[in-house]
């Protein structure tokens, strides 16, 4: 109970700091918490806002699916063989820490300016952590599990579904949570750079007009969505027996 | 005092002690008072007199508070009730002249063996020449000379404990407290380390209190063994061994050894059953 109380105090403290910064910086630089939420309410009543949400959401959903399926697939493939796992790990880590934004022009040249480019951006960002975590989990699968499977004379697909998958699920979930956030980020940055639709584009055009209220409202909307989704994933994560 | 027949005339009987070196009076330790967590009566009330120069061991079932006892004696923890005296003064924090060797590996992984051993001396501001002299001596005494410039990560568990002992030794403590220092080591190494400890004790003429769960270790090394009850731990027996000062692990072949161990187990068995929740 005390923990919840402390948390609420922290949120209130953050809001106070926000309000303080607003008082110092002025209305044109930083809108107050109240004004931001009012603006968000306004936006949420327009069709245009939800149109942008749908655009981003669509691209994000597709990018996420590709990241998860592609990531788990790639990770499993690379992780099954110890040598391929050891060889691939530094390569994947290098790709992970690369500023993938640098490769955006290449993606645009390949896919053009439509939604497929956005999906590619998102998948680029989300696929690697999922693959990395899955690969490591498979590599660390306890040999005794496989010996048990052998002793029970299970078929390869039985081993995969009844032993390997449940055993690596916690790690894969951790990678999936990361992949979720990074896919979203990839899609949004892509929209900021080269799109005429979507929430990223909305922020960009608001920036050009100096419309700080809209920028902050959309940023807050995205933050709330991301944190809520992450919390949901954590709940699912905790429900997995391990 | 339990005397044995066939004592070699050259060996001295258990040493005569001049005074009480450290004392615990009515010491208890209770956790959880004033918090929302359950109250745990971890120790006491304990009364203990450690005689100057003696080798005293504490045995008892798991969870009876042996480590808490050591923490109180060393000044690492303040008792809930009772007083702790060292050299006739009440202690406040860790007093000067007390050395502690813990069960876990406390060697500093980022320093060489030599720097580890010198650590306490450097903090105390001892001059460089004296530091070198004492470190060389301790390193040699503990058999670490060939590893003086190695890092702990390169050494075995037993060697690392020797580093910790050497680090305590250089400060020339008058009271040495050891909390199950050989717990993580295999039996053969333990026996050899026991011999090292006896050598150390004779050389430094310090008072030694050893906490151990191994009855044979307590029986073979000590002048006196205190048996603690299940939690909350109190002393239920003190057994004098009567060993000569010049002794080593080969004393296990002495017939008296079996008698001492048997007596310890007789008391301890009941307490151990209690501590695991079985009716004795």
């Amino acid at each position, binding site marked *: 109970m005390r923990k919840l109380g402390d948390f609420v105090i922290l949120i209130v403290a953050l809001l106070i700091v926000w309000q303080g910064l607003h008082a110092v910086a002025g209305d044109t630089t930083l809108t107050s918490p109240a004004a931001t939420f009012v603006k968000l309410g306004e936006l949420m009543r327009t069709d245009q806002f939800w149109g942008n949400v749908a655009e981003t959401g669509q691209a994000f959903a597709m990018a996420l699916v590709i990241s998860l399926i592609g990531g788990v697939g790639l990770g499993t493939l690379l992780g099954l063989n110890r040598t391929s796992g050891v060889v691939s790990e*530094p390569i994947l880590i290098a790709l992970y820490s690369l500023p993938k934004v640098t*490769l955006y022009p290449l993606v645009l040249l390949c896919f053009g300016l439509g939604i497929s480019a956005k999906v590619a951006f998102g998948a680029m960002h989300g696929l690697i952590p999922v693959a990395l975590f899955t690969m490591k989990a498979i590599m660390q699968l306890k040999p005794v599990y496989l010996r048990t499977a052998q002793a029970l004379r299970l078929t390869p697909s039985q081993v995969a579904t009844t032993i390997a998958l449940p055993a690596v699920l916690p790690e894969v979930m951790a990678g999936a949570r990361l992949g979720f956030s990074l896919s979203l980020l990839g899609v949004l940055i892509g929209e900021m750079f080269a799109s005429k639709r979507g929430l990223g584009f909305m922020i960009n055009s608001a920036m050009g007009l100096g419309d700080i209220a809209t920028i902050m409202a959309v940023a807050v909307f995205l933050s709330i969505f*991301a944190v809520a989704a992450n919390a949901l994933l954590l709940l699912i994560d905790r429900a997995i027996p391990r | 005092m339990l005397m044995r027949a066939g004592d070699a005339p050259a060996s001295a009987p258990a040493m005569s002690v001049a005074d009480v070196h450290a004392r615990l009076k009515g010491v208890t330790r209770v956790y959880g008072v004033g918090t929302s967590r359950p109250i745990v009566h971890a120790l006491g009330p304990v009364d203990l007199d450690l005689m100057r120069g003696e080798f005293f061991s504490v045995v008892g079932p798991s969870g009876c508070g042996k480590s808490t006892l050591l923490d109180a004696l060393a000044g690492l923890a303040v008792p809930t009730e009772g007083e702790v005296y060292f050299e006739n003064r009440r202690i406040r924090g860790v007093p000067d002249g007390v050395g502690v060797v813990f069960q876990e590996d406390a060697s500093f992984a980022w320093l060489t063996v030599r720097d580890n051993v010198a650590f306490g001396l450097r903090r105390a501001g001892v001059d460089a020449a004296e530091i070198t002299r004492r470190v060389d001596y301790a390193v040699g005494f503990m058999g670490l000379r060939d590893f003086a410039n190695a890092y702990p990560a390169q050494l075995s568990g037993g060697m690392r404990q020797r580093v910790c002992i050497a680090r305590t030794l250089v400060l020339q403590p008058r009271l040495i407290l050891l909390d199950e220092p050989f717990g993580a080591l295999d039996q053969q190494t333990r026996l050899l380390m026991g011999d090292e400890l006896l050598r150390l004790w004779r050389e430094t003429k310090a008072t030694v209190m050893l906490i151990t769960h191994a009855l044979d270790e307590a029986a073979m090394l000590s002048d006196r063994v205190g048996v603690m009850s299940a939690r909350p731990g109190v002393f239920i027996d003190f057994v004098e061994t009567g060993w000569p000062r010049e002794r080593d692990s080969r004393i296990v072949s002495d017939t008296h050894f079996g008698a001492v161990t048997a007596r310890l187990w007789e008391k301890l068995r009941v307490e151990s059953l209690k501590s695991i929740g079985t009716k004795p």
Partner: protein
Amino acid sequence: MTREGWIRLAVVVAAVAVLEALCRTGVIAHTVLLAPSEMAVSLWNILRGGELNEDILSTLRNVLLSSVISAVLGFVCGAIIHALPRVRGAVEPLLASYYAIPTFMFYPIFIVMFGVGAQAIIAIAVLLSIVAMITATLTGLDRIPPVLRKTGTVFRMSPAARAVMIDLPAAAPYLFTGVKLTFAYSLIGVIASEFILSGAGIGYAIAYAYNNFNNQRMYGLMLLVIIVAIAANAALDAIDRRLQSRLRR
């Protein structure tokens, strides 16, 4: 080099060779992707020519500045939070979900605040990387075996002396992991910012080249970013491994 190291080198060389072949034979159109060798030549010309030196230095300066600020500030914040358990209890859930938030969305706010320039870029890069350092600091301080702290007490050291002589070296491996992450995130933050809106820097130069259909320059610069990112991470990794091996218990 280990056997796996050689295999890895072979894989990378093979991949580059395949790319080279596909580009040279026209399977991949020249307007889409330059052959790796061409990219290398372009990069060499850029570096020799010197007109982009200002941009390159600007980026490197921003990355270093934000890394240092994040690392130091992150460590201090982490140490303070670690010392105040109640604060930590309240803050930790937020820290855990911090990287779920697309923090980069706040870049436009910094632009409105500071204008288009280094300050906004450094601000967002710090915002992006600081939490990694805070988390690493908390973990590092947590992982100090209690017996080492007790040893400090037995030696009757003051809290300050203990913090510097025992806590810091004992937590060093975890702290350095934090530094590695901080650098990586700073690099990503700076480049992404320069890309979206900036007047200078490598990211800006790439975006400019893209908008002007200057594929030569664009790919030369992309190669530069890739090389810098890989080299920097490899260097930090090497230091990290030496630190870990020394301190492995």
